[in-house]
Structure formats: structure tokens, C-alpha cells
């Protein structure tokens, strides 16, 4: 037992170490003046992609349920945190304090949405979570687009129609402006805060996995009936994992939103594509492998965003052009091929045979 514990501690330390070393490398690159603008623009996205991938892996890999609305929770976290920031812009002038409170609010609101969705769905067995989260992701985007919130001396005004029906005083300020979203967001996200948030996310997820609760969650994934029969409250633990994951996605959303000046819900940022992209990170990194979810988003983004663009600058190549134009197609193929390769029983058998042969030849 003790050796097992030190082994997990060592494994976790390696995961934290990768993040810290990555951070130091980026700091060295920027201190020596080698940081290009295209790379520095990717630093904060790296952080929120890692947070989103790690939190989705908690649901997909550890709990064993499929959530297709991770972008929806991200959207909730983004809008609630930015709404707070805009309201408090002139009240709390210290941007760090304000951002920390905004992050906590984003996480809490997203977690509450996670619980609200989880209660009806997670007590059932079957694939209902996948379809409900998929629908949630699509609907929350539409709802945000018809939401108008303004603030004046009388307090807050809500409307689902337009800014005029808010009925505000002339001095009122429209904060959430329907499809235009929220404008003039202070840029509170920094790379250092991003890395700290990644470490906090990892700490929460890894502590959860290696705790008594985490073992209960994994036992549900491995055999629901057996877990139930030894007295594990299945719904409670499913809900716990799902709401923690939703809350962490909210943090990712808050980090994302405070990196922009204008936040609006479009199919591009909070749509189905985003949820699938995060799922691709999780699958590429390995389902249930938290360290993989740290590495996969960074590698995939470096390859598809940074190196591909660099290569294209050297000379235009039709294949490279096709890859960068049809990135979503690449994601779809990656998803199918990896699933077939790593989960099909025939493939597993084939891989074992090949490995076995190699081992024999070496001996």
C-alpha cells in the first residue's frame, strides 16, 4: 500500500513537473527575446485548453460518462465571470483580486449548471448524459445570444428581447448586449495566472482521483453493479465528478474570456466544434490519463497552429494548405483512428502479437 502511494505521488510529481518545466522554457524563450508574437499569443490558450482537457478527462476517463457539452460549461463560466468583472470594474480596482473573485464565480456558476443537468441525467444508466450535454451546449449558446442585461442606478435590468425593453435610466449601461455579447473586457488573464490555474486544476483532479471518493468514482466506471452492491451511492459520486468537471471548465472559460476584449457566444468558440476539439485532446492524450491531457493540447496546437504556419511560410505546399484549412476534418479522422487503434479488441491482439514477436527476436 505504501509503495503504491509513493508510486502515485511520483507519477503526480512528474505531471506537475511537466507543467512547471514548460512554464520555465517559455519564460526562458521570452527572456532571451526569442518569443515570436504568434507563439506568445498561444500561451494563454495553452493554459485554458489544458484546463478544459483535464476537466473533461475527469468525466470521460475517470467517471466513464461521455460529456459533449464542455464548451457549454465554458460558456457559462466565461459569461458569469466577465459579467462580474464588468459590474465591479470601478468598484474593485485591483485587477488581480477582481479576477480571482471572477474566477471563483465562473467556477461556481458552471458547477451549479453541472449539478442542475446532472441530477435528472446521472441517476439513469445509459448514454443520456452524452445527448443532454450535447443539447445543453447548443442551447446555452442560443440563450446567451438573446440575453440583455443592463445596469443603472436602480440596479440590474434583464430582458430577452432587446436593449430598449430593459427600461433603464438614461445613465444606464448595457453590460450584456445580446448577440454582440460583452464588450470592453479588461484583459486580466496572464500566462502566469494561467499556469497557476493549470496547477490548481491538476491538484484538484489528481487529489480527487487518489482519494477515497476518487476510488468510488472509478469503481462505478469499472462495474456499476458491483459498486452499488458494496454500498457506493452511485448518483452522488457521479454528480460529484461531473460538477467538479463543470466547475473547472468554468475556470477555463473565465480564463478564456478575460483574454479577449469582446466576448460573444458564437458557434466557433462555444459551439459543438469546441466540445469536440476538447474531446480530441482527451482521446489523443489517452482516456483516463491526466498527464496525456496536459500534453496533448499543447502538442496538437503547436503542430497545427505554430509549426504548420512556419512551414507554410517557407513554401506553399498543397498538403499543408489542406491540413490547415480542414483542421476539423483532421480532428475527426484522428478521433476515429485512435479509437479504433486503441480500443478494438482485434487491434489490441494484433499489437500484443507484434510486441511479443519483437520481444522474442530480441531474446
Amino acid at each position, binding site marked *: 500500500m505504501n509503495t503504491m502511494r509513493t508510486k502515485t505521488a511520483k507519477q503526480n510529481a512528474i505531471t506537475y513537473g511537466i507543467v512547471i518545466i514548460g512554464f520555465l522554457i517559455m519564460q526562458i524563450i521570452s527572456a532571451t527575446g526569442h518569443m515570436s508574437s504568434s507563439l506568445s499569443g498561444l500561451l494563454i490558450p495553452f493554459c485554458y485548453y489544458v484546463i478544459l482537457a483535464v476537466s473533461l478527462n475527469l468525466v*470521460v476517463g475517470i467517471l*466513464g*460518462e*461521455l460529456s*459533449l457539452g464542455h464548451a457549454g460549461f465554458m460558456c457559462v463560466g466565461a459569461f458569469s465571470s466577465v459579467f462580474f468583472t464588468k459590474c465591479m470594474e470601478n468598484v474593485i480596482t485591483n485587477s488581480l483580486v477582481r479576477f480571482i473573485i471572477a474566477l471563483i464565480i465562473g467556477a461556481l456558476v458552471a458547477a451549479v449548471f453541472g449539478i442542475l443537468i446532472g441530477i*435528472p*441525467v446521472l441517476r*439513469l444508466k445509459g*448514454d*443520456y448524459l*452524452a*445527448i*443532454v450535454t*450535447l*443539447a*445543453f451546449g*447548443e*442551447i446555452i449558446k*442560443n*440563450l446567451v*445570444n*438573446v440575453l440583455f442585461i443592463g445596469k443603472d442606478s436602480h440596479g440590474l435590468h434583464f430582458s*430577452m428581447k432587446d436593449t430598449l425593453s430593459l427600461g433603464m435610466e438614461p445613465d444606464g449601461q448595457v453590460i450584456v448586449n445580446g448577440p454582440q455579447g460583452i464588450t470592453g473586457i479588461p484583459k486580466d488573464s496572464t500566462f502566469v495566472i494561467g499556469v497557476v490555474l493549470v496547477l490548481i486544476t491538476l491538484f484538484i483532479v489528481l487529489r480527487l482521483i487518489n482519494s477515497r471518493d476518487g476510488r468510488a468514482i472509478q469503481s462505478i466506471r469499472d462495474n456499476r*453493479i458491483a459498486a452499488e452492491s458494496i454500498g457506493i451511492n452511485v448518483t452522488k459520486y457521479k454528480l460529484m465528478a461531473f460538477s467538479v468537471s463543470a466547475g473547472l471548465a468554468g475556470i477555463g472559460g473565465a480564463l478564456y474570456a478575460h483574454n479577449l476584449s469582446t466576448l460573444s457566444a458564437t458557434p466557433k468558440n462555444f459551439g*459543438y466544434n469546441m466540445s*469536440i476539439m476538447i*474531446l480530441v485532446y482527451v*482521446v489523443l492524450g489517452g*482516456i483516463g490519463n491526466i498527464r496525456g491531457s496536459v500534453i496533448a493540447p499543447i502538442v496538437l496546437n503547436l503542430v497545427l497552429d505554430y509549426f504548420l504556419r512556419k512551414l507554410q511560410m517557407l513554401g506553399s505546399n498543397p498538403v499543408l494548405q489542406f491540413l490547415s484549412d*480542414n483542421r*476539423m*476534418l483532421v*480532428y*475527426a*479522422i484522428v*478521433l*476515429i483512428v485512435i*479509437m*479504433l487503434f486503441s*480500443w*478494438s*479488441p*482485434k*487491434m489490441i491482439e494484433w499489437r500484443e502479437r507484434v510486441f511479443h514477436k519483437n520481444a522474442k527476436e530480441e531474446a
Partner: protein
Amino acid sequence: MSFLNYLISGISLGSVYAIIALGYTMVYGIAKMLNFAHGDVIMVGAYVVFYSTAAGMPAIPAVLLSVVICTVLGMVIEAVAYRPLRSAASPLAVLITAIGVSYLLQNLALLFWSSNTKSFTSVVKIPALKVAGLNISGETMVTILACIVIVVGLTLFINKTKPGQAMLAVSEDKGAAQLMGINVNATIALTFAIGSGLAAIAGVLLCSAYPSLTPYTGSMPGIKAFVAAVFGGIGSIPGAMIGGILLGIIEIFGKAYISSQMADAIVFAVLIVVLLVKPTGLLGKQIQEKV
């Protein structure tokens, strides 16, 4: 009078959902998997009809061509992407692959047919019927008729023919069915073939009534049809029909009387309520888990 008009367009939309839901519910019943790509097969079917009628093909052969292409597509998807994972250790594996297939179809459609909205010309040439101030379009009549014919046909097929009985057997117990000499792989492939063929018909009917066609046309009706299948009781053919029609009526009434932007949210609120109150759906059976 507008109430009756809304009711009729609700039943018409619901009939399309019912046809899609039949494909969903059959595949779910037999392969125990959510075929996320089902909605995108609808889109492919609609594009085939769009391009073949644009090339001058008459409506009925174009629809038949689309049914054939979608049937083959469904069988290919099943054989390439789903069959190798049927006995995978994790039930998530095939689900994630299904998401990948759905996404692949959407992006291939984007690549071949671009994201521009195509305006679909209705394949139904029957003039609208005017009864006592009600205006029933030809599309509505054909859709409702098609739905009834398909449900009756499928019920007869499953209950009266050997392959249909084989489907029932496989959905109940794969292992036992195999021992009785049923070819499980062929039966599942047949289910996918029928489901995808129905999806093609649904695609044509959907786009005849709502004539804008994009690579994403199929995804939302696909999800809603799943809601309909759950509503009616997943695995049940009459349930899929009742669920589909009720859902169509709810959606149209929601659009008309509450808010057009909230209509989708209302549909999913229905799903949440069904899952809370009666997770087995209207006509679903409670299945006891065997250990």
C-alpha cells in the same frame, strides 16, 4: 383557426422526427449504441436528392437513389467504425467513434459541398389542400402518409418475417441468438441499412418542408429525434412514432405561443422532464438488469 394550422404543421414536423427516431430506436435497441452519425446521414440523403434533381433527374428516382446511397453509407459506417469496437472493453469507445463519424460526415460535406446554404426544391408536386379555411400543403400530406406507411411496414416486417424476428432476438440476447443460428453481424448490418434508408427519406421530407440545406442540417433534427425516441420509449417502434409526433407538436406550439428562440430549449426541457418522471418513456418497458 390558426391553432389547427399549427397543429397540422406540428404533426407534419413530428412525422419527420418519427421517421428519424425509428432509425435511432432500432439501432439503439439492437446495437445498444447511440448512433450520433444518424443525423448526418439525413443531411447526406438530402444533398444527394438536391444534386440529382439539379442534374435533371425526376423526383422519385432521385429519392430512390438517395435511399440506396444512404443505405450503403450506413452499412459502411457500421462495418468500418462500429463493428470492430462492438466487443471493446469500454462502452464509451463506440460512442466516441460515433461522434467522430458524425463529425467526419459534417466536415466532408463542408469540403465537397461548401457551407453555403442550398435552397432545396421540394420533391412533392401535389397542390395544397384547402379544407374549411385550413391550408394543408402537399408536403404535409406526403410526410404524414409516409410516416404511417413506414411504421406499419416496419411493424409487419419485424413481427412477420424471419429477418425481423432475428432482429428482435439479437436485441434481446446476442449470445443466445447466435446459438440459435442467427447471423448477428448480418442482422445488425441490416438494422443499420434500414435505419439509414429511413434517414434518407426523412432528409428529403425535412428539406422539402424546410428548404434550407447546409452540412449542419441533420444534426439538430437528429438530436431531437433521439429526444423523441426517449420520449416514446427507446426500442419501441410505435413509441418512436408517438414520441416524434408529440415532440413536433410541442416544438411548433412552443415556437408559436412562447418564443421562437426558446423552442429548442423547450424541446430539451421535455427530455429532462421525461427523464425525471418516466425514464423508460411512454411505451418503454422496464428492463431488469441481469448480473
